[in-house]
């Protein structure tokens, strides 16, 4: 083995005085090693002190967060029911997909987006927006996922692929097909970045599905339940090992409407392929029985997130399906305004029921010639005939005598020029011009000539179909206006506004409106109904000045047709306002739409009365039921 011995050993032994085979020579170095060991152990124990004693709380919390997962239990939205309890808007269960951000790896975002047919850039941007939020807040990446996508998620949830994917059971809104009552109901959608900052939605977080329009928005807080949470212990594969606690979701409250599906369907069918709106109110309490705006849209397309193509189609449609014409279309009411003018004339004393005017087919006021729609003229016209035959010249005279400010006073009393306060978002107020209105908005004094146009419902005057139904309904009630509403709220029964008018004057106007439908020469004969006394008023209004109508756009801007009706005349139960945009020469066919709705109302009432009677008879005389056959008597 000497080959492997250190070299020159012999020399070294010779050069050194003696070989000492003891361990004393190294004792200082061994002591140094001992100090080193003490140092190492102190270093280690200090590490444990820091983690286990000094910073213990944060690490304990981290351990809890590691193993305890909060699985959201999404509360279903309340259903929406019609006045008879029939379901208009329902829910059906679906799956939503979340990204668990504490497990998220940036390089997974793209493959996940591709697997779920999402835009990878958008998803990345979405993740980026959450950068500053706490890690345990998850991102909703897709609602309403399909079977194929569920399979994709299930196949990739193992820790080696995409453990950040998380499926959540959710409820999806199910709206009626074909856009039935779409504008009334509105739609839901995922809360947008902008909406997160609105005070209206302050209590909702990202990913929440909120009402975006219509009743869904108006009653969002009531319809939305409170999401629950399941607290579970999971291992590092995300497998649930133990359930710790559960906070059940509180479902949203159902919303019962005043709307009657039977009337709604009739009104929608009547408006098919027409642009416009129908509003049916119960003037005795302000309940909205039907509200239609056409063209409609399919709210189901909004139910989770609307596709960009669908959205653009809705946005760019020239007929603007998103507009709820019943409360947002503001047009000149035309002749349907004449009952208000007549009332203003009678109440202000400018005319009495015997006031007569001669209609030769037109008349001059303040240097301008104003034509009557009937070129041949109406001859001598009194109040009743003026309303019944809708003589323009008669009302030019009434308006001229009454003055703009009296007209404005009674229009204002009838609720025109204000929002009716219906429980829907974004209602429009319309315009009732007056001398004060003109001074305020244009800094100009009112010219008496302008009154002439307003007297036949033209000029600056605009109303919504809802306002018209409300105004005429209150007039029919003798000056009692019940604020319209779609949801019965016993806690907040709004008191009617009672106008200071002489019921006798209202009676005279109503009598005129009876004539419109039921007398020879009346303009609204098409609204006549056997067995029910219908009162009404036709209207036709230009959408722009005659000069503009002659330009290239003119053919698109045909006159709007209006019809407003109520029945029965003596004790009204239903008021209907119909707006048919661009009806042109077919304006007379607005009346049958109102008639159909009124007919549906009274047919249903008769049916219910019959059913009640049958039930009552059955209850009172049970022996009318099936009788057991008697055994033949034995001789």
């Amino acid at each position: 083995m000497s080959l492997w011995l250190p070299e020159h050993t012999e020399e070294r032994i010779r050069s050194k005085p003696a070989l000492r085979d003891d361990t004393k020579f190294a004792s200082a170095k061994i002591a140094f090693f001992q100090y080193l060991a003490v140092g190492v152990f102190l270093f280690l124990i200090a590490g444990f002190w820091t983690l286990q004693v000094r910073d213990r709380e944060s690490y304990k919390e981290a351990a809890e967060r590691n193993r305890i997962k909060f699985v959201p239990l999404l509360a279903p939205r309340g259903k929406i029911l019609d006045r008879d309890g029939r379901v208009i808007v329902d829910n059906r269960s679906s799956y939503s997909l979340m990204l668990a951000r504490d497990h998220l790896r940036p390089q997974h975002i793209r493959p996940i987006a591709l697997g779920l047919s999402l835009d990878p850039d958008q998803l990345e941007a979405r993740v980026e927006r959450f950068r500053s939020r706490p890690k345990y807040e998850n991102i909703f990446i897709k609602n309403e996922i399909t079977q194929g996508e569920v399979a994709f998620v299930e196949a990739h949830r193992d820790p080696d692929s995409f453990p950040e994917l998380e499926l959540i059971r959710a409820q999806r809104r199910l709206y009626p097909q074909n856009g039935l009552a779409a504008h009334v109901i509105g739609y839901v959608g995922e809360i947008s970045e902008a909406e997160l900052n609105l005070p209206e939605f302050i209590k909702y977080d990202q990913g929440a599905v909120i009402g975006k329009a219509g009743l869904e928005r108006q009653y969002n807080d009531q319809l939305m339940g409170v999401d629950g949470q399941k607290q579970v212990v999971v291992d590092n594969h995300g497998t649930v090992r133990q359930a710790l606690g559960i906070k059940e979701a509180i479902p949203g409250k159902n919303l019962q409407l005043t709307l009657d599906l039977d009337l709604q369907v009739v009104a929608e069918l009547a408006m098919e392929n027409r642009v416009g709106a129908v509003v049916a109110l119960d003037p005795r309490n302000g309940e909205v029985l039907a509200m239609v705006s056409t063209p409609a849209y399919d709210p189901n397309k909004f139910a989770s997130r609307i596709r960009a193509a669908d959205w653009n189609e809705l946005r760019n449609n020239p007929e603007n399906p998103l507009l709820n014409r019943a409360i947002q279309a503001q047009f000149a009411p035309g002749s349907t305004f004449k009952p208000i003018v007549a009332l203003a004339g009678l109440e202000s004393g400018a005319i009495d029921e015997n006031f007569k005017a001669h209609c030769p087919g037109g008349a001059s006021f303040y240097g301008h010639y104003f034509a009557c729609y009937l070129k041949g003229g109406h001859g001598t016209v009194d109040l009743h005939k003026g309303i019944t035959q809708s003589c323009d010249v008669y009302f030019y005279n009434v308006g001229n005598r009454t003055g703009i400010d009296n007209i404005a006073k009674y229009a204002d009393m009838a609720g025109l020029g204000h929002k009716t306060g219906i429980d829907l978002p974004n209602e429009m107020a319309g315009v009732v011009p007056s001398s004060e209105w003109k001074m305020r908005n244009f800094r100009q004094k009112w010219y008496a000539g302008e009154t002439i146009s307003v007297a036949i419902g033209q000029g600056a005057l605009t109303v919504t179909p809802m306002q018209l139904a409300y105004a005429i309904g209150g007039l029919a009630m003798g000056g009692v206006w019940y604020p319209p509403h779609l949801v019965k709220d016993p806690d907040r029964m709004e008191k009617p506004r009672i106008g200071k008018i002489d019921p006798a004057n209202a009676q005279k106007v109503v009598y005129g409106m009876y004539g419109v439908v039921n007398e020879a020469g009346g303009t609204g004969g098409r609204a006549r109904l056997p067995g029910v006394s219908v009162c009404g008023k036709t209207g036709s209004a230009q959408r722009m000045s005659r000069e503009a109508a002659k330009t290239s756009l003119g053919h698109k801007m045909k006159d709007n047709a209006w019809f407003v009706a109520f029945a029965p005349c003596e004790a009204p139960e239903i008021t209907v306002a119909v707006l048919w945009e661009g009806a042109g020469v077919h304006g007379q066919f607005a009346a049958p739409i109102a008639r159909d709705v009124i007919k549906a109302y009274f047919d249903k009432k008769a049916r219910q009365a019959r059913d009640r009677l049958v039930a009552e008879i059955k209850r009172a005389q049970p022996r009318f039921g099936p009788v057991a056959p008697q055994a033949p008597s034995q001789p």
Partner: protein
Amino acid sequence: MARYRSIRDLDWALLISTLIICAMGILQIYSATRDTKYDDAWWKQALWVLVGLLVMWIAAQIDYHTLLGQAFVLYFLSIACLAVVLVIGTTRFGGRRWIGYGSFHLQVSEFVKTVIILLVARYLTELKTDRAEGRDLLKLGGLVAVPMLLVMKQPDLGTALTYLPILAVGILLAGLRWQYVAVIGVVLLLVVPLGWRYGLKDYQKARLVTFLDPGRDPQGTGYQVIQSKIAVGAGQMWGRGVTKGTQTQYGFLPVPHTDFIFSAFAEEHGFFGVAWMLGFYFVLLMQIVQNAQMAPDRSGMYLCMGVGALLLFHILVNIGMVVGSMPVTGIPLPLMSYGGSSILSFFLMLGLVNSVRLGRFVT
């Protein structure tokens, strides 16, 4: 060979601390592998400890000079074995480190530690001087470097590095001049960047980077450190109780029965348990050092100090890793971590230490 030996002369303090550490290790393995595919590990470990005690007893009976005499033979045998492992060894956990048949595998590099200790002790004893020269360092360094390189090739940087403290402590005890130490320092400063550039695998670099900044990649290599620190911190003062640590039980802690066993222990036994356990390790280490001080000759002293240096290095690197003070190298905690090769290897060394101790009582 008329040596007086009796049970009474064994190092009882060393033996008792060893047994306590092993017992706590088995308990912790049981707790950490419940309901996993390793749930038989705890009794296998107990079996290994029993075999280890037998090995220790036999090693204590053998005169360590006999083994020292065969140091060079064992050295060449080791190199041959390591070479064989590289060629026909079993690949597990990303390294070709094991040799064996069926389900029985031995990690050769663990036993090479003992051989390195014997080699260093033999070489330095043969110097027969109080002052080791630079050329001795180079020669001994060269001898140690061969198995080191073979182990690094497996690749197993962690185990390869454990050979260095044996060499370092030995050569310093042998009286290397401070000038040489300074030169080594300068050379290391030059070599480390080069080693970083060419010598390290990507995962090794990643581990070092992670050590310096664990938050940088929380899902990758930093994950282990972060989860280990959470486990340790969650243990707080008194621990969460055996089988009650959520980090350990729910699989957040990586390999809680081998490399990160002390992390699992810290979670379930708290700072209180950690202090006691470190105390036992300290007693064990100090007993080994005491045996070195009282060794009958230099070879015995070098032998004991080699074992001590190796043990201290293992404790520093493994437990330091658990609290995030050391990079993740994947070396086991002596006597606690699950693994037959490691257990047998350390019991063999402790047997040698006892053999040195018993040498004092030679009549």
